[in-house]
């Protein structure tokens, strides 16, 4: 049995979508269990050994939100990613982001879904308590609000600091532009301009110029990834 940190429960009634999600997650090293309806989803969800569950908003017989509510009532804290059509997005769905869960609007790019699952799977209480984060030769001091790369201090704007902190906390994971806008700027919409790319580009220049290896990578069609070479 795989460790629970790599197990994802997929609750999805459309077989084709379910196949795509499962395939994508498996290719990224997750173990998946598939529930094709709400009842099965509830049964599997109660096992509570999953790192993340993806829940279709409209399941036969039950609303995905209701399913999550029932599991929460039974003290199951597995973070959930709701997959919802645009027309079904309302305040309750938006509220998920406040509660530590997340949502994604259909149709979605599988890479975006993977990035969200990664972010939810990674969320652990211990990581938030650290005051010093390191990736390769990059050090960020959350208390002193300072950043050093190979010992040299890098001057950052406050927002750039928050951006870097989010990237470092999600090191080795791909984060999408929408996720950055959401977590760094507290804005909930998909950017239609390339403003995020340019902003990240400037951070990259401050971070990587003159260094022996790049840390901040652009992942084409998806977003960005902070990664040190192994």
């Amino acid at each position, binding site marked *: 049995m795989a460790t629970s940190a790599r197990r994802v429960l997929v609750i999805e009634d459309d077989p084709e979508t379910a196949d795509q999600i499962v395939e994508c997650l498996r290719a990224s090293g997750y173990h998946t269990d598939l529930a094709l309806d709400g009842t099965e989803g509830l049964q599997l969800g109660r096992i509570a050994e999953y790192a993340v569950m993806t829940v279709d908003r409209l399941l036969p017989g039950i609303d995905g939100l209701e399913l999550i509510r029932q599991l929460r009532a039974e003290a199951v804290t597995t973070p959930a990613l709701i997959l919802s059509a*645009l027309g079904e997005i309302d305040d309750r769905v938006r509220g998920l982001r406040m509660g530590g869960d997340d949502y994604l609007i259909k149709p979605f790019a599988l890479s975006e879904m993977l990035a969200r699952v990664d972010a939810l799977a990674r969320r652990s209480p211990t990581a938030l308590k650290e005051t010093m984060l390191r990736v390769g030769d990059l050090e960020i001091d959350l208390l002193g609000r300072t950043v050093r790369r190979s010992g040299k201090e890098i001057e950052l704007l406050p927002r750039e600091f928050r951006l870097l902190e989010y990237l470092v906390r999600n090191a080795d994971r791909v984060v999408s532009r929408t996720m950055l806008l959401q977590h760094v*700027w507290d804005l909930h*919409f998909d950017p239609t*301009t390339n403003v995020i790319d340019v902003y990240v580009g400037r951070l990259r220049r401050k971070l990587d110029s003159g260094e022996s290896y790049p840390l901040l990578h652009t992942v084409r069609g998806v977003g960005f990834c902070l990664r040190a070479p192994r």
Partner: protein
Amino acid sequence: MLLGKTLHSSTLRLALIYVGLFAAAIIGLFGYLYWSTLSYVHAQSDRSIAAERSVLDGAFAAGGRRGVVEAIDRRLRDRHFAGWSYLLADGSLTVVAGNLRAWPRSAAGERGWADIPGDGSRLRAAYARLTNGDRILVGRRPARLAGFARTLGFGLASAVGLIILLAAGAGISTARRSVSRIEAINVTSREIMRAGLGRRIPLRGTGDEWDELAANLNSMLDRISDLVEANRQVSDNIAHDLRTPLTRMRARLERACYQPLTAPQYRSLLGEVIAELDGILRTFSSLLRISQIEARNPRAGFRNLDLAALAREVAELFDATAEEHSVSLGIAAERGVFALADRDLLFDALSNLLDNAIIHGGRGGQVRIEAGVDTDGPVVSVADHGPGIPPEEHRHVFKRFYRLEQSRNSPGNGLGLSLVAAVANLHGARIRIEDNGPGLKVALHFPSPPENLAPGNSAPAGTELGELEGEGLTRG
């Protein structure tokens, strides 16, 4: 047909109900008038009868039975007293004088009033016993009174009839009039359903409420046909805008199908196809987002937002973009400028304006974002020194997929300003396009927030001004 409709019209039914109620009131009023007039006339008649009797009383006091007989005879000879009846009888009720054959049975007792039935009409009489035991009776046939009552009754009844007739006539003509106007609207609606949105309801030029209704319906029809036209335009544009990248994609895939490619070539081909698809998906997302905003309930999720703080945040986000385009980004948004707004939507709208300004403002240009309060209320504006938009294009630029000739070949999907317009509409804000001499200035004029919303209720605005001052936002 019009008559049938008139008879079935609600106006007529209502008018007839009013006529009925009005007629009942009139009949009641006239009935009371008739009754009170007659009682007054009867009371008057009784008074003159009583006066006659006391004249006979006086004749008895002066000349005894003889005096009374003389007085009675005098009166019976006088034509003036035609219609009057007099009777003097002794103690055994034997007639002594007068023009009645016998003492009437109903006149019993010392004195009083009697209504004596007779041929044709009844006799109203007053009688009394004199001190010598004789009895006198004075009466009058109310023949003239009956005539008066008939005349009065006839007059009043005719008045009631006339009033009811007039009211019913007025009701029918009002109903006919409204039915004919409604019929004109009905005819036009049926024609619109049959033949299309081109028809309009004819106005009569009277300026009355019917004309107003017709004018309102006509402008509603104008608006609907504008929307239908805009919709058609949008689907045309979607079809056109999507066909180009899809055709390109198809050609690439087709070539790949018939040519053996190496693995890296395949990867790069797939990368290009994915990039094209992302562009198409972005266009769709923008379209959906605009429709979603247009369909949203206004004010839902609105907060009292500091527009100045928001402007600073947007400016901060675009700082790097401006730097990349060597555009100097200036900001004037120091004071708190408050309006009821949705932060996400407004941020998106301002992002689009700023992005446009930076891209179209030209390299090395200046872009300025301002938030302030003018006489009407809060204003946020974005201005550049680029080529601007010719005045004749102003009303088109907010249409979906509309692109100026000069910017056809620059990146963009022609949806940015449509989104700005949708967001502004949702906020009840006016958009003003101004000439920045040279350049373009787009200003959003917001309605003032209600007084009771103190700045303290504002949303967390994020970036503080201090964060920006140190870095210096204005770069060459």
